[in-house]
């Protein structure tokens, strides 16, 4: 556990910079992407944002809801099996979102994924995590996977900011291709930390309750 340097995002080709701007505009048009900072203020410090997961739009919407300065140094953690594809999707994930792509399929994927997260955190980047691991039904918030606990343990100095994403499951639910343009929102709650002596289960339950407190259903 050491203080990470200030993150400097990789230089971007102008097409990627333009594409990123377009992506933010499109996301806002399609999904609203209103940001409500109720328990935390936008700040350019290293943080881990963790959110409920119900739609492929989640990472995009949370990322687009951040102020531009924070967006550049915040990297969504995304599933490689969905995002790491040749063509547009892969380009968006790698060049525009600057995503940390993790493999969640293979047996040793878990450990490798944690290594990826550690590396990104060591470089000073903020992360967007979906600790449920997979998209839920959008109504209830599932049990959280241990990834968030390991991050909290490895970097107790970081603020872990709960973010409740609302309506994304109605805009683009699991199994649908066409979005319905309702108004989504991201609510940023008060940061949590791993308490001294707190166990894995207790911490993950507390993190889940932090999401529920912002509007989720148990």
């Amino acid at each position, binding site marked *: 556990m050491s203080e990470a340097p200030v993150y400097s995002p990789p230089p971007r080709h102008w097409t990627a910079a333009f594409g990123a701007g377009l992506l933010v505009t499109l996301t806002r048009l399609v999904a609203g992407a*209103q940001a409500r900072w109720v328990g935390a203020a936008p700040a350019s410090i290293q943080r881990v944002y963790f959110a409920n997961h119900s739609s492929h739009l989640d990472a995009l919407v949370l990322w687009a809801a951040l102020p531009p300065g924070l967006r550049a140094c915040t990297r969504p953690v995304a599933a490689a099996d969905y995002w790491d594809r040749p063509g547009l999707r892969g380009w968006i994930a790698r060049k525009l979102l600057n995503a940390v792509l993790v493999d969640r399929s293979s047996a040793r994927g878990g450990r490798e994924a944690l290594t990826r997260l550690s590396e990104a955190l060591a470089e000073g980047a903020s992360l967007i995590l979906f600790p449920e691991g997979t998209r839920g*039904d959008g109504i209830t918030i599932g049990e959280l996977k241990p990834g968030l606990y390991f991050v909290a343990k490895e970097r107790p100095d970081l603020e872990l900011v709960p973010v409740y994403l609302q309506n994304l*499951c*109605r805009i683009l639910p699991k199994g*649908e291709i066409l979005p*319905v343009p*309702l*108004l989504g929102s991201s609510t940023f709650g008060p940061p949590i930390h791993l308490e001294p002596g707190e166990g894995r289960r207790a911490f993950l339950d507390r993190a889940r309750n932090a999401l529920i407190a912002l509007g989720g259903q148990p």
Partner: protein
Amino acid sequence: MSVLWDQQIIALLSGIVGLLVLGSAVGLVLDRRVQTDSGRLVVANLNARVRAWWVMTAVFVAALATGGIGSVILFGLTSFIALREFITLTPTHRADHRTLFWAFFVFVPIQYYLVATHWYGLFVIFIPVYAFLFVPVRSVLAGDTQDFLARTAKIQWGLMVAVYCVSHAPALLMLQIPGYEGENAKLLLYLIVVVQLSDVLQYVFGKTLGRHKIVPNVSPNKTWEGTVGGIAAATLVGALLWWATPFSPWEAAGIALIANLAGFAGGLCMSAIKRDRGIKDFGTLIEGHGGVMDRIDSLCFAAPLFFHVVRYSYT
């Protein structure tokens, strides 16, 4: 169509700009004079509202200046955004996803296509008959029966209020009124001015003289003094603007009164929905006003009545 060169339109627009200048000036003076914190909030909201009025006026006039098609597109977008706010706030199920897609991307464009092509016969029944029947059918095919009637009704309500009712405002452009050919843009401007002015005047009378609440459980801001004063004053203005319409002064007063009463009813009903959902505004798009739906709630109820009174009596 060079609508903007009509002298009467110029007179109407000059009046609106005059009111906006007056509003901005009053806001500036109040901003200097206000002492208390709660007063400061009211004045800040007032100034935000006036600023938003400048923008809304500019957008509306620009649309009007293009002739018919710009107005149809503007109201089509307004409907789209209002429907978006409405459906966002009225929970639907996962099984309604495809139905909603139809509502947004098929029914809204078709309704405004019918307005643009002056296809009155289908325009007037498309949503109340065809969309009305299609919505439950598409939802039932998704196989979820929980809250079926309520879910279906919410989508139908959204389409009726945000799309069908609002589309009657630009539909004024399709009316063939003898002796008023090519001047219908003024009728649209007249409706918007009277209805929105009624809202503004009800707000002004309510803030200055309001004492007795009408339905405190629904809308704590609606008072007898504000409502009666605002509607009476807006009706008077409607009568004084008779020269821009095919109406006589007395007819203009009667029609403006109908539009204003309907507008009041619209505001009340939409407030009841917001109350039930536990929120203050439908959205945040228009600074100081809330969402688009908050701004056009009175127009939703006033436009169809105005349209049909004019169509029945003057064509």
